[in-house]
């Protein structure tokens, strides 16, 4: 399990993909896959579990979709918006 970062834990997320960071006041919107990743990160799930959850929930075409890359891109997005620290790594 990853130790979820405090700021990540405190994100307010609703079912329609609206995300509010109470520390900075920033708001974002994300799609269903993003919501799934966020929820898993807030729970401290490891990378392998997140990938499995995405495979189980969405139609993933092996060879065309690279789930690991998608997860990394999402984490980068969180870093760019200071939701997780710049040295955060997903095990």
């Amino acid at each position, binding site marked *: 399990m990853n130790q979820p970062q405090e700021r990540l834990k*405190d994100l307010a997320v609703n079912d329609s993909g609206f995300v509010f960071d*109470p*520390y*900075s006041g920033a708001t974002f919107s994300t799609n269903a896959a993003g919501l799934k990743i966020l929820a898993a990160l807030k729970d401290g799930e490891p990378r392998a579990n997140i990938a499995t959850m995405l495979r189980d929930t969405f139609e993933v075409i092996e060879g065309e979709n690279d789930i690991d890359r998608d997860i990394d891109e999402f984490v980068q997005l969180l870093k760019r918006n*200071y939701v997780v620290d*710049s040295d955060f790594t997903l095990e």
Partner: protein
Amino acid sequence: MKLTVAITGINATDNPGPGITVARALRAHPDFKGRIVGLAYDTLDPGIYASEMIDDVFLIPYPSAGVEALQDRLRYINERVHLDVILPTLDSELPNFIASVKVLDELKIGHFMPTQEQLDLRSKQHLVELGERADLPVPKTKVVNDVSEIFEFKDLKYPVFVKGVFYGAIRATNINEAAAAFYATVAKWGLPVLIQEATHGDEIDVVAVGDGKGGLIGAVAMKKTFLTDKGKGWAGIAVRDPQALDATRRFVEATKWRGPFELEVMKDEATGEINVLEINPRFPAWCFLSAGAGANLPYACTLLAAGQSVNPEDYSTYEAGTMFVRIAIDQIVSLKDFQEIATTGELIRTLAKNPEL
């Protein structure tokens, strides 16, 4: 709570005084059933005509008229409506009100203001000294009384902000622009002028009330989300910024601040570093957000001014994400009301509205 509360700063223009929002916060509290008396400087101060917020109005002399003129007027107003509490809300009038504390005490009018020493310490020209005393990071700031001094500061990094003692900030990207801004600032606000290095990041403002013993009654942080062309927040959102709230606590501990204030910080999200830009010794015009977010600080301040005890736990949490979006409306004013305030300097509506008071 049935109190008669006098509030100044009811000039709700496009750069609004905080008085109307303080009145609105009191009205919004379920336990407040009192009377609100507006103290106005001009017959066209919009708050005079906001009868749903302000019951009665009296004109008071401008601060430049001096302490005695203010005290004479307060004595008269107290005879007319018997004030329980007075809440000054403007920087420029605070010295006269602080100098009138004895008179207010004699008249049994409650107040909750900083001391003159506290007021001086947080002034812009003492910001660096305050930063050292309270361990607060502040931008490099120079106090200038003569334009030639600007050319002597070799260690200042441009751009800078050229600021007046009370209000105003002009951005300057080089020495020549700074010199021009110096003259413009002196013409408007007098000496001294402050030259402050520009800092990067997002501005976060905190409204808070200090208990006068080093403790914090409550604090609500806000990030502006929409600015007017004067740089005033027209919309904002309550945030829970740990660094800004921590700086607020340190300021109160170091100064034992008594009363409301607004702490303005610039935060670099990438590094988490903050710089305290200034501390205003009164409620900001956006303070109704504190009531909307669940920590009604103007109400807390009124209780304290009335000599009642306040439990900081009642004001310790607020709903981050609560937003405000300001609106400008045209009030319809009867000529009768305008005539009355213009000719007599007062407008008494209470008896017609509520004969019990």
